[in-house]
């Protein structure tokens, strides 16, 4: 029984891989095991046993019960789905299980169960961490305090000793941390709490400076705290250039309202404004009066010294810790007002930082506050003991223990050697590590065999790395960190590396040979913060060269991978103090120059008579500092510049945007018409829907051919093979989009993204599609013309990329079909935002994250109103302001831009096109499907796949009795989609002549290039197609690697809607999931490898001589 694995105390059984235990079990046996596990997880009192059972259940449904053909594909009950969205996972599971009992097990219901078990498992773990954080001693009282009169904290007297209006400033300076080994992400809370003996990191506190800035390394994180003469909380983030005076309690808990969420989290987690008082409706001034005295308030200022976001050095966690530490010192919660913290105080700051991260809806690893401690330390998990809140719940404690190595353990020489050899960089990539941490947790709990062995190997490497450090052998250290990266880390998470990192390593090896001692991945994945270890005699040279190499490589890959910033190289030194505070008094009590940039400009513009005495004092302090301090002198001239308005004229960006619009066929008349319709509520998200009386039902067996159950005949396959051999078929891959989900709106070309290693190398989507065409062509003894459609966003980069890669050596004709129409994004209407966020069912988030999201959405609605609803969206890079107007236009573009004419000239016998999405990696010119299409005589044959939970956005339906593809956007009711058995894969076989006939065109007119007639025909066809309004997330980058995401409105016409036209004959064919599924999100990659999808694709590909 699988439950025995979970409950066993014997490591041999407890650590048995689930996959091995499930191998050889029949479907019935698996279902029986699933049933037993489900009963077990309902009754077990042990958290981790429950969670393991949930992950087992997820894996059984996702990997062992899926893919099996069952008699009944079944439907997913919508009610269960609604529970899933609302995070009522146990209820969702009950619905899905009831449905499984009624209609039998099947792929669809297993996909729903897998998702529900998976989410419940993570929810259970997150709940436990939250509970543990709240029950840590020292944190508990903050959740009980509900009235200002009960506030038990008082500001220390030293901070109230003012001279006139100048109060002393408490300055907390904190190093950041780098980890020499995280022992395979063992710093994830969940792992540490279940496997404390395996949770170990070597963590180094470091000071930083940007190499070349002329500055010497210093603690990069600073927090300033002082009393002010106003009953407000004044928060300022110098790096984000954000400041606010908060006078209402509710605003302290509104994290996404501005860019001050981290400071607010610190104010709350440090107990200044304890979490228990949220929602009490009490005036903030009353709380501040208890804390600081009547009429007074507090000012908190943060600075990270321009260290970019995503550095993998835990900058934000250490900033949070610095802010918390300052607040705790100021209120006597730490006995040390200045200097280093005592060990028990550091632990308290750690507990509060964990709490702060939870409150702020983010989550770091448990080693991230490492900068609070000095030097080099071993951080490890510890077993829960009597009296711990974790006792009886989990094996380990929430909080790790820290052992700071003395010089008798790691000598000064070793520390110096590390500093002399390591080139610390930020590669510039911005990635979301969240999915990786989930994958690690799941693999750990299901004891995936290779990964479990990798975890053991990583642990043994930690010991070896320590030995190398102790003996000052940095060369050996470099070898070991490389071994860690190449071995266990990539065994557990192949996505820890990427083409950019691999290129950098290869070039470092190439240029420095034996003097390049090793690579070191910092944090969750590579591409951002990284270390390259060199022979010390060449470090200076290596710093210069690595910067150049990163810059060149980034230029090469800038359109393929998401970069947030220019790469940088750091100078660093090991910090011997950990977090350290100083009390600045009198003339020394100054905030950093950039603070005054933000705060003094409005004062200088004000009437002198309107200034308060405190403001006058501030101005006079700045004036005096400007005379004596060179940093302030430079700041003074910048400040004066901000006071003088710069010359008028349009920005270079607006010129570039106008050029782009002109070049890519923007239609201003249509744009204005859409704006008018949008403002008049004639179009909008709600208007995308068909009328409520529309009858939507599932298709009947006569509406489609199911090739998964009735394979095509030999004759049909031969028909396809013959067509391939004759060269009468071409492939059209849609590569105009940016793949918003793939890089969360970063605006890179998805087609060029080296998404995974296949056949031993990172492959782009384009290369994969060409490799399939190459293989099918070779099998048929012919070449297959291949077209990639492009857009304003992807055309240039794709051309450049294919050229630099020699078209990947593709033997057949290869064309790009540039788009011929573009839209300009608009600021959304409040109505549409509210419809999307309030009326459409959507996934609720974990409590604090949901609060963050709600707050952010309120802010975004405010932005839309303020910026002007339905106004042009132009406040971003020009390319981010444009939008493609839907994949309906992709095929018509082939006619307009001459690509079809070229194809027909090259291949007069060309008869069929296979059109598919860039992310449908399984789509290839399968002779069986081609033969089926040809034999059916249909003008358009659409491929559909049996629906799983994740297949949302439409499907094959009978609409008022007629089969057609129905877009999710136009479903009158959400639940309609759940009655549909098949999902549209978008892959379409097109009879060229009959498609032309639909447009009332023929080959002659195409070959003659009758552009006007072609354009008129396309316009006429487009007019018959519905227009959808959609919201898309677009990223706006600013500062040092910062990103904001804005929802923007755009419109589109969709390819599948051709099926609603009565005058074109369409057919539908059900294909295998491996062929029709789409890879839309990097978080899918892991499952894609595990469930055999990647192997399937690799078999379809012929990489050619270059591959």
């Amino acid at each position, binding site marked *: 029984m699988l439950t025995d694995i979970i409950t066993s105390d014997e490591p041999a059984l407890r650590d048995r891989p689930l996959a091995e235990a499930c191998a050889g079990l029949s479907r019935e046996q698996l279902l029986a095991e699933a049933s037993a596990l489900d009963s077990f997880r309902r009754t077990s009192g042990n958290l981790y046993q429950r969670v393991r059972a949930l992950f087992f259940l997820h894996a059984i449904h996702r990997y062992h019960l899926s893919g099996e053909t069952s008699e009944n594909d079944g439907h997913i009950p919508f009610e269960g789905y609604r529970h899933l969205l609302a995070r009522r996972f146990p209820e969702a599971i009950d619905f899905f299980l009831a449905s499984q009992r009624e209609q039998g097990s099947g792929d669809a219901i297993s996909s729903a169960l897998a998702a529900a078990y998976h989410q419940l498992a993570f929810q259970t773990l997150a709940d436990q961490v939250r509970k543990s954080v709240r029950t840590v*001693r*020292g*944190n*508990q*009282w903050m959740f*009980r*305090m509900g*009235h200002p*009169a*009960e*506030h*038990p*904290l*008082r500001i220390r007297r030293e901070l109230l000793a003012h001279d006139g209006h100048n109060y002393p400033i408490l300055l907390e300076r904190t190093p950041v941390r780098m980890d020499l080994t995280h022992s395979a992400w063992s710093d994830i809370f969940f792992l540490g709490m279940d496997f404390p003996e395996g949770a170990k990191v070597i963590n180094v506190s470091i000071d930083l400076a940007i190499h070349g800035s002329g500055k010497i390394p210093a603690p990069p994180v600073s927090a300033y705290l002082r009393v002010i003469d106003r009953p407000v909380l004044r928060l300022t983030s110098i790096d984000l250039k954000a400041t606010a005076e908060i006078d209402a309690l509710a605003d302290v808990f509104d994290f996404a309202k501005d860019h001050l969420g981290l400071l607010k989290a610190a104010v709350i987690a440090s*107990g200044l404004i304890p979490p228990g008082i949220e929602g009490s409706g009490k005036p903030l001034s009353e709380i501040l009066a208890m804390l600081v005295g009547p009429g007074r308030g507090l000012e908190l200022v943060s600075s990270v010294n321009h260290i970019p976001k995503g550095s993998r050095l835990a900058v934000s966690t250490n900033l949070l810790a610095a802010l918390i530490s300052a607040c*705790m010192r100021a*209120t*006597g*919660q730490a006995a040390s007002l200045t200097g280093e913290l005592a060990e*028990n105080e550091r632990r*308290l700051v750690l507990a509060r930082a964990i709490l702060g991260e939870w409150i702020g809806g983010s989550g770091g690893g448990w080693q991230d506050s490492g900068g609070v401690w000095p030097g080099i330390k071993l951080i490890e998990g510890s077993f829960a003991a009597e009296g711990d809140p974790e006792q009886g719940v989990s094996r380990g404690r929430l909080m790790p223990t820290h052992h700071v190595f003395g010089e008798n353990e790691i000598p000064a020489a070793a520390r110096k050697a590390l500093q002399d050899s390591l080139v610390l960089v930020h590669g510039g990539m911005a990635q979301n590590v969240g999915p990786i941490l989930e994958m690690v947790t799941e693999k750990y709990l299901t004891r995936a065999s290779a990964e479990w062995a990798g975890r053991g190997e990583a642990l043994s490497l930690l010991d070896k790395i320590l030995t190398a450090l102790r003996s000052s052998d940095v060369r050996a250290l470099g070898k070991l960190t490389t071994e860690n990266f190449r071995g266990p880390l990539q065994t557990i998470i192949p996505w820890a590396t990427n083409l950019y990192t691999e290129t950098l390593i290869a070039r470092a090896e190439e240029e420095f040979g034996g003097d390049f001692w090793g690579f070191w991945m910092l944090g969750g994945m590579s591409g951002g913060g990284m270390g390259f270890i060199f022979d010390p005699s060449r470090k200076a040279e290596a710093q210069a060269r690595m910067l150049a190499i990163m810059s060149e490589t980034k230029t090469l890959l800038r359109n393929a991978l998401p970069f947030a910033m220019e790469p940088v190289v750091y100078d660093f030194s090991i910090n011997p103090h950990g977090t350290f505070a100083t009390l600045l008094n009198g003339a020394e009590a100054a905030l950093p120059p950039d603070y005054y940039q933000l705060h003094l400009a409005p004062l200088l513009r004000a009437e002198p008579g309107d200034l308060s005495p405190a403001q006058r004092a501030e101005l006079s302090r700045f004036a005096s500092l400007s005379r004596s301090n060179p940093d302030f002198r430079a700041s003074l001239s910048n400040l004066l510049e901000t006071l003088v308005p710069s010359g008028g004229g349009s920005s270079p960006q607006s010129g570039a945007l106008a050029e782009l619009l002109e070049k890519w066929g923007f239609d201003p008349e249509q744009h204005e018409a859409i704006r008018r319709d949008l403002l008049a509520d004639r179009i909008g998200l709600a208007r995308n829907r068909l009328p409520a009386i529309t009858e939507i039902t599932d298709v009947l067996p006569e509406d489609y051919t199911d090739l998964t159950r009735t394979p095509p005949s030999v004759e049909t396959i031969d028909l396809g093979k013959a067509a391939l051999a004759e060269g009468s078929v071409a492939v059209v891959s849609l590569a105009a989009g940016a793949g918003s989900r793939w890089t969360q709106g970063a605006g890179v070309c998805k087609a060029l993204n080296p998404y995974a290693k296949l056949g031993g190398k990172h492959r782009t989507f384009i290369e994969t599609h060409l490799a399939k065409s190459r293989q099918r062509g070779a099998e048929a003894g012919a070449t297959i013309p291949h077209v990639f459609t492009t857009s304003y966003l992807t055309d240039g980069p794709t051309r450049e990329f294919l050229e630099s890669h020699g078209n990947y050596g593709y033997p057949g004709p290869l064309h790009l079909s540039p788009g011929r129409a573009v839209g300009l994004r608009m600021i959304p209407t409040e109505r549409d935002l509210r419809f999307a966020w309030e009326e459409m069912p959507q996934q609720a988030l974990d409590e604090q994250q949901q609060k963050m999201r709600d707050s952010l959405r309120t802010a975004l609605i405010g932005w839309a109103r303020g910026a002007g609803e339905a106004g042009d969206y132009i406040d971003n890079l020009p390319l981010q302001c444009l939008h493609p107007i839907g994949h309906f236009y992709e095929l018509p573009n082939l006619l307009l831009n001459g690509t079809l004419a070229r194809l027909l000239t090259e291949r007069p016998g060309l008869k069929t096109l296979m059109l598919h999405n860039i992310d449908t990696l399984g789509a290839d010119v399968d002779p069986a499907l081609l033969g089926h299409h040809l034999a059916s005589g249909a003008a358009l044959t659409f491929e559909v796949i049996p629906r799983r939970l994740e297949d949302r956005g439409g499907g094959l339906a009978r609409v008022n009795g007629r089969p057609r593809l129905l877009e999710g956007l136009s479903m009158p009711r959400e639940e309609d989609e759940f009655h549909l058995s098949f999902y549209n894969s978008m892959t379409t076989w097109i009879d060229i002549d009959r498609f032309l006939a639909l447009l009332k065109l023929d080959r002659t007119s195409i070959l003659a290039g009758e552009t006007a007639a072609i354009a008129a025909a396309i316009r006429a066809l487009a007019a018959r197609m519905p227009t959808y309004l959609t919201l898309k997330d677009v990223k706006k980058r600013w500062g040092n690697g910062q990103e904001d995401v804005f929802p923007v409105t755009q419109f589109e016409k969709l390819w599948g809607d051709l099926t609603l036209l009565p005058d074109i004959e369409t057919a539908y064919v059900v294909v295998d999931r491996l062929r029709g599924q789409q890879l839309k999100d990097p978080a899918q990659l892991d499952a894609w490898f595990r469930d055999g999808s990647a192997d399937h694709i690799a078999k379809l590909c012929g990489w050619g001589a270059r591959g």
Partner: protein
Amino acid sequence: MKIHKAVITAAGPDQRQLPLQSIVSATGESKTAIELLLDEIFEAGIRNAALIVAPGQTEAFRAAVGSHLPQIEFIEQAEPLGYGHAVLCAKDFTGDEAFLLLVGDHLYLSNRDRSCVRQLLETATREKCSVSAVQATREGKLPYYGAVSGKNIPGSRDLYQIENILEKPTPTVAEQELITPGLRQGHYLCFFGMHVLTATTMRLLEDALESSGKSLPLTPSLAAAARSERHLAFEIAGQRYNIGEAYGLLRAQLAMALAGPQRDEILTMLVELMATSR
């Protein structure tokens, strides 16, 4: 152990006038606060008391102690150097004897038939050691009091062996260092303003005086004494009224009045006040 002496401190910069305020006792007599306090200690068996007052305040206090004057020794604290220093001023007065220590700006009302002072004295006499009166107090009041933690003495509901003493701790520290099993969450044993101390405390205060700066607090010496000899915390059945805090005198007066025979009259007065006030 017999306890015959008491030390009452009234020299703090913000408490000098407080013991001189008039208040109507539970029995309806108008007395100064200090006289009421003295009534309670002498009724409980104390024979002599030392009043620590600020320079120049002796006469005012002489006039305020009523009939107890012969039993009182007045000691002026030359400089306001902290609570511990004020107590140390009575060193010669207490000699080698154990003594009762009270603050002059508090009044006490017992929930039992015996007064708060009597409860404490009986306990100390029985246990033959230092005893500090404590009361379970919500964490929101921690900024005002010293607090202790300890283990309940087996067989006794209200006695604790003191393990740790901290002056005005934050709840952050209290949660980690002042856990007393059996108390409700968020409650700590805080000083009631009433102790029976042995001569050891005086000796430790004297030792501490040398290293102290401008101020000599009492709590560190109490903590040191608790480490060197048996020191219990006694959870007293009664209420304390700090007449120095806002409306403190009013609260103390109301409490006194409600505890006496005029209870109904006072309640009626309060209702009338509520009905007629805006």
